[in-house]
């Protein structure tokens, strides 16, 4: 107590100035990287012109948004983004939970660790490399799937990179391949945290393995799964740009099923140079995304305060 009191006397404004100074570089970075772009959304309401700059360009109100929502693209990219995310969320409920429960049943620790190491591998590599791996499977005339697997099943080769209808399945599979490992590891950590007494009591009462999983593991894991799922729902308007750009090799023929809001914004900006349309789509994404994050956080907070973001 004495020490604390002496400490308080030392807390002169100069000391806090030192602490304040430490925060300057980080806050400056957030100002440039995050807050300036937030104010930069005003360009969605302008007829942007590179020579006039951000502030000099003329205001045009909601014109950019009008153009955007008149195109069929707006509906298409919204639909794609939401449907893909919905599929990802459903599969992320099932696959990683199953894998985590199975990993927990592996008795030898080194073996369990080895499985974990292997299933996390896809999560570690860049999306460009994933693009190469998928290309090795699907490339026209030489792909492993088309030349080896399909003939074994007696099916003809398909030119995957020009047939949009297969891509919802391909991208969903690739997404699960990448993300299942990390979610499994997270769920496994909370299964390991379950008090073994529950299982001992269940065994004394004669519960088999399957019953233990159904009545103990899954109910006790449910809160974590719920939180992870709600966080994904909060981000349903965003998607992994790399997955939708690199994996289909940016193929124009596939855009009806692979174009999502993030890729649309990128292409409108970098390929077409249409700043107005691109920024309008970006603002649309940011605002709806913001509302969804708030709503899902509100729900998380109702369920379990500790897991809420705020």
């Amino acid at each position, binding site marked *: 107590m004495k020490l604390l009191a002496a400490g308080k006397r030392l807390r002169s404004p100069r000391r806090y100035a030192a602490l304040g100074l430490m*925060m300057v570089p*980080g806050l400056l970075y957030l100002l440039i990287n995050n807050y300036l772009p937030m104010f930069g959304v005003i360009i969605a309401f302008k007829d942007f012109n590179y020579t006039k700059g951000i502030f000099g360009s003329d205001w045009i109100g909601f014109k950019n948004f009008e153009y955007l929502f008149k195109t069929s693209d707006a509906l298409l990219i919204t639909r794609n983004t939401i449907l893909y995310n919905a599929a990802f969320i459903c599969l992320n409920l099932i696959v990683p939970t199953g894998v985590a429960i199975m990993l927990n049943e592996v008795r030898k620790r080194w073996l369990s660790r080895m499985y974990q190491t292997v299933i996390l591998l896809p999560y570690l590599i860049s*999306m460009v490399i994933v693009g190469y791996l998928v290309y090795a499977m699907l490339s026209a005339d030489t792909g492993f799937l088309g030349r080896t697997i399909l003939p074994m099943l007696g099916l003809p080769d398909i030119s995957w990179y020009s047939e949009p209808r297969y891509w919802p399945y391909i991208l969903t599979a690739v997404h699960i391949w990448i993300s299942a490992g990390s979610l499994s590891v*997270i769920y496994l950590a909370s299964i390991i945290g379950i008090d073994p007494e529950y299982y001992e009591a269940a065994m004394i009462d004669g519960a088999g393995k399957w019953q233990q999983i159904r009545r103990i593991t899954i109910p006790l894991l449910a809160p974590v799964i719920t939180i992870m799922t709600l966080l994904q729902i909060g981000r349903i308007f965003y998607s992994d740009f790399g997955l939708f750009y690199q994996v289909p090799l940016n193929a124009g023929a596939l855009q009806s099923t692979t174009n999502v809001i993030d890729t649309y914004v990128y292409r409108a900006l970098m390929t077409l140079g249409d700043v107005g349309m691109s*920024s309008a789509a970006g603002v649309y994404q940011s605002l709806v995304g913001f509302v969804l994050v708030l709503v899902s956080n509100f729900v998380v907070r109702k369920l379990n305060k500790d897991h809420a973001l705020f």
Partner: protein
Amino acid sequence: MKTNNSIGQWFVHLVLLVISACCLLPFLLLFITSITDEQSIIRHGYSFFPETFSLAAYQYLWHDIGRILHAYGITIAITLIGTAAGLIITALLAYPLSRKDMPLGRFWSFVVFFTMLLNGGLVPQYLVYTQLFELKNTLLGLIVPGLLMNAFYVMMMRTFFATSIPFPVIESANIDGAGEFRTFVQIVLPLSMPILATVGLFQTIHYWNDWFNGMLYITDSKLFSLQNLLNRILLDFDFLTSSNFAGGNAAELTDVPRETVRMAMAVIGIVPILIAYPFFQRYFVKGLTIGAIKG
């Protein structure tokens, strides 16, 4: 607690082995393809058991070794500089925020946190970095935008400082006459190695794997990172043989083993990370679980 249910055990191992194979085999296919003879690929497609092996792809790439090493150099440079600078500014920001006695601490925490909820999106960010600050075609364009620091890691570190470093330790250092900065460097940081290692590892992976900044801000192939080089070759193979990249190699354009060179390039790109992975795997798993449980 675990019963001796051997059929169950066999089932579990069987399923896990199949899943592991799904994760590993694509990498094996990539590697085998890179050492396959081009003609054998054209005839039979990519295969785990090729007819003829050949190192032609690597021989071809050997001519371009200077450029590949250059791209590696760029990647290593941005990874080292970015991770070091990012860790420093993250820790410097997180520490004052973790102090309960910091005036306006809650306000500044909210300023950091709010960036996780709302972002301005790609277009304004691109214009800020190209119009306001001219980062196009500079190394800073690969390091600064988006990757240098993120609010999530600041919050993770703040939680670690607040919960793992007892306040009396900081107080007593102050009483002994250490200023705030000295306390931070000599007392707090040495006690925070676990969180610094975790965040540093994730930053390293983000920088090593990043191709997005390169796609946005770099058009000059001299500044291509390894991932940008891989990206360009994947989307447009001719880039590898174009004079833009290959320089004096144009004479051999006619018989480039296209498929195998492409795969050999990818192998060259992932080997270092695969070698390093077993050593950092434990921290990687730990980082994933802390990040998910409390962000």
